[in-house]
């Protein structure tokens, strides 16, 4: 019985000299929070129902910072306290958690989205987190497999059982059947099974397709970047990154915690070269269009880089600075004047490794001189291209794509959200390169188109005749 184990654990703490253990007690016929200070009081201890205790725990700690305290808590509280700890509101040191697991029914009732392996079994008790001897990894993951993590743009690894990205909704772990040793039958590995106290992990679950009937579809499948290897003049090297990869390195909650480290040797990058229009506006590579967002994101990255590495130098090679949004031009000016970002007008002819450095050969067409920079890191503003599977999707949906593979609207000026199929709408870069603002605006438009469609009980379609 869980309750006996919890009582034993709590009474041990109290006997060891802890001043109090917060839990739930039944008094006056009702269950509520209670701070147990003597082992004999624990006879009133109960575990049901769920009470959120994180706030009370913080209050107790603030009131009595010198006391040794513990608490009997569920996974949700542990997660809450972890977040509070990151914000400096709660100090984990010296505070003892006695974890209790929720039953599947309770998890269901709470609509709890925990990192589940078996979506019905795991109760989010996070015992597995507690069991980790060093808090080296935030979420212990005993899986032996390492593969490039998609969310980190492939530059950092993940396990075969992992959370796709920090803000994933639902916030659950997923299993990568392609790499899992046990599923592939290569090894009877039970790393994750052993650690999960809720016995939530099954390797028998399989992916399945679900059929859903809908009245409208908004296609918002996004884009891909042109692969770096497409440009032969630029070598493939761990220190030559595309925008999405460098974005992860800049991210304060990313794999390097926002420290600008070179993937090759983990040293802080002191000179970074940003190159715009890599593939874009380049008919030779079949991409005559402008990708629209690179000018802005490269200067943003250069600025963030300068904020992270004050003594570093950022260079941006450009053809034109195309920044037309509200406040964009001022932003570029600020980058140049306040952050010392150096703009070089000209194309880059070659990027290659030279010992410890990455050499960038280019031209400054304003001074007419050849430029050679020995950089630590090179960031390429790769062209935006349609997702490789977009054409296939378009065929399935019966809608048209343009010459580059972006989904085509029915009328570029008057009906920019609609496709040739009534009830199918477009939002975002799937239709063509655009920035976040435009994507959000278009998505809002598409959503309201859907609502307009659903607001009537009957649907009136335009007559279409073959001619």
């Amino acid at each position, binding site marked *: 019985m869980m309750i006996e184990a919890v009582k034993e654990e709590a009474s041990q703490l109290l006997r060891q000299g802890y*001043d*109090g253990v917060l839990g739930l007690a039944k*008094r*006056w*016929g*009702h*269950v*509520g*929070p*209670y*701070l147990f*200070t003597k082992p004999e009081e624990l006879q009133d201890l109960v575990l049901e*129902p*769920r*009470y959120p205790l994180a*706030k*009370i725990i913080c*209050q*107790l700690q603030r*009131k*009595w910072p010198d*006391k040794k305290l513990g608490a009997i808590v569920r996974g949700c509280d542990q997660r809450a306290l972890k977040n509070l700890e990151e914000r400096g509101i709660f100090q984990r040191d010296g505070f003892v958690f006695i974890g209790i697991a929720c039953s599947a029914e309770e998890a269901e009732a709470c609509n709890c989205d925990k990192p589940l392996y078996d979506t019905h079994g795991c109760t989010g008790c996070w015992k597995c987190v507690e069991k980790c001897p060093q808090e080296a990894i935030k979420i212990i993951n005993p899986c032996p497999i390492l593969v490039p993590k998609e969310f980190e743009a492939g530059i950092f690894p993940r396990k075969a059982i992992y959370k796709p990205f920090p803000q994933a909704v639902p916030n659950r772990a997923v299993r990568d059947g392609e790499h899992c040793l046990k599923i592939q039958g290569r090894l009877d590995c039970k790393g994750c099974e052993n650690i999960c106290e809720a016995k939530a992990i099954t390797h028998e679950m399989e992916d399945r397709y679900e059929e859903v009937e809908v009245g409208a579809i908004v296609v918002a499948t996004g884009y891909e970047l042109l692969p770096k290897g497409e440009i032969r003049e630029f070598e493939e090297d761990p220190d030559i990154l595309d925008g999405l990869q460098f974005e992860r390195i800049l991210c304060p909650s990313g794999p390097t915690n926002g420290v600008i480290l070179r993937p090759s040797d983990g040293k802080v990058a002191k000179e970074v070269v940003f190159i715009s229009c890599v593939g874009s506006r380049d008919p030779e590579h079949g991409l005559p269009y402008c990708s629209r967002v690179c000018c802005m994101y490269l200067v943003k990255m250069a600025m963030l880089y300068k904020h992270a590495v004050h003594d570093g130098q950022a260079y941006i090679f450009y053809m034109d600075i195309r920044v037309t949004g509200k406040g964009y031009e001022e932003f570029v000016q600020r980058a140049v004047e306040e952050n010392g970002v150096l703009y070089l007008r000209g194309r880059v002819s070659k990027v290659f490794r030279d010992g410890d450095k990455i050499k960038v050969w280019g031209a400054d067409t304003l001074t007419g001189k050849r430029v050679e920079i020995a950089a630590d890191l090179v960031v390429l503003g790769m062209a935006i291209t349609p997702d490789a599977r977009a054409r296939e999707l378009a065929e399935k949906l019966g809608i048209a794509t343009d010459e580059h593979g972006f989904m085509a609207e029915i009328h570029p000026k008057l009906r920019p959200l609609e496709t040739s199929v009534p009830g199918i709408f477009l939002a975002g870069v799937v239709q063509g390169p655009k920035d976040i603002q435009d994507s959000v605006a278009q998505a809002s438009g598409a959503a309201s188109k859907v609502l307009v469609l659903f607001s009537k009980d009957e649907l009136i379609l335009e007559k279409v005749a073959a001619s």
Partner: protein
Amino acid sequence: MNCDFVLTICPFCGCGCNVYLQVLDGEIAGVIPCKTDEISEGRLCVKGRNAHRFIQHQDRLKTPLIKQNGQFRPASWQEALEAIGQKLTQIKRDFGPDAIAFISSAKCTNEENFALMKFARAVIGTNNIDHCARLCHASTMVGLMSAFGSGAMTNSTTEIEGADCIFVIGSNTSEQHPMVASRILKAKDNGAKLIVVDPRRIPLAHFADVYLQIEPGTDVCLLNGLMNIILAQGLVDEQFVSQRTEGFEDFKKKIEEYPPQRVQQVTGIPSEELERAARMYGEAERATIIYCMGVTQHTTGTDNVRSCANLALLTGNVGRESTGVNPLRGQNNVQGACDMGALPNVFPGYQAVDDPSMKAKFEKAWDTTLSSSPGLTLTEMFEAAYRGQIKALYIVGENPLLSEPNARHAQEALEKLDLLVVQDIFLSETAQLAHVVLPAASFAEKEGTFTATDRRVQRVRKAIDPLGDSKPDWAIISQLAQYIGGKGFDYASAEDIMEESATLTPIYSGISYQRLDSGEVLAWPCPTKGHPGTKFLHQETFTRGKGRLFAIDFREPAELPDEEFPLMLTTGRLMFHYHTGTMTRRIPSLESEVSTGFVELNPEDAQRFGVKPGERVTVKSRRGDIEIDVFITDRVAPGVVFIPFHFAECAANVLTSDELDPEAKIPELKVCAVNIQGKG
């Protein structure tokens, strides 16, 4: 290190939510909802969540205050009790006991109401005791008492969930009784139909299957109209009517005078809507009526209540689970204050003071002689004080200066008194006029019981010691009683009082602290120690025998709009504040939500009076005027304005009329005529 979580009852509305007060070394650090409580189910409204924030507020009264040369000075208990005792004795000697009146408190515990009631009746010898129920559900007491034999909510809060049709009239439930509203919405989720009748488009109206935006004050006409349709369409529960009710023939004749056309003319509600509502209610298997101040605070309050009772009787929707006529009580313990006899005409348990056998019973128990003439009601007390007939007024935990209608008149009345004693936790507007102010302990500092709106008696537990020199009200009253030689006030604890009241109050006889502390849910009547309490009333027979159908004529409100005062004012409350704001306006998080009053005005009227949004205007009635900001909204219909009454600086009750319901003596707080003047 002293940490405790004390289970007690939320001090705001009548829902009666169990809450835990979190106490850290004598400081109340928070309110935690009780997950095992069947009323709140572990949720609390914004007021309940913040209930701890006024308890240890710096403004709390900590010593007795005596007024000298127009200024308060701190005094000792000895001094204060001496001053009050001497004056009371003197007034009693010179003018007789009926020159003294008591206003008890629906915020205080049952024990404290019992103690004050006993003090008034046994020590002073007057039945002049009343409390704010007079201003809220006096008409319910009279109306339901005459129709059913009991003036309380017939069914329990939890039962609402199981109803098929919910008829909400004159209750802004989601703002004033959030936990009841959550039951209504749950019932709605379960497929129940919801009918909302209110002059304002209240939040609940958005969920209603039928929303009837009624002209204020035309409730009787509307209800008669509904019953006319129910009769015409044969939706009457004939078995129920013939076996369990009386007065059907007269009633039927009267109802026939209210065809839908007439009702449409008076109430402004189209007859098709009326018919939909009537069918919905009439056809439901289990229909429940929920009502509140919108029904009771009228000169026709008693008629309104009886009409609601008629509707339920006609369709057989009483005496079964999930049906009934359910007045929602506004204060945490207004039900208990009534039960404990803080009313001028009854002893505890609604035992009439003019019934010789009852009088004899109490005289024997208290070893004294009692008055057999019913005392003055709260509204009459002010009139009597104004005339000089009442010389001393002892007010416990109420702020009538803001809650009384025609507030300026009330102030003049109070200023004429020889002795005004106010016992409160804050120096309220009323307390500022007092001769002696006694510091009382808040709900968190004392033991006792509250009775929730659905008659459920629940325990209030002490979380911290009383602040400063303050004392629980029952202790103050006991001391004062002993000081002037009253017998039978040697209570050692609130429990002693509860035990005494149980022996004298049949409906409470089976209730004890021991049973309540073991977690039993006890709703009165609970006549014996083994009785499980009563979930819903009138199951086999009505308390009075048969349910009485009344033939009721529609009467117009006392004051209607005219040339000079063309708008109809209706008053009410907001979600974030509680009554006169003594508590909630000291809670920063609530004060920041709504920090002052406003007048709701329809856009059409705004145009008509040339008023712009947010403009400061003067609202004027025959009794007074206030300055207030305008909030233009179509929540109110054209011709109707709404002002919340919480705010002293723009007190709605300066405007309201003190016309009374002839039977219940409840003032018409919901309708009066006003005009609006912009600055420009």
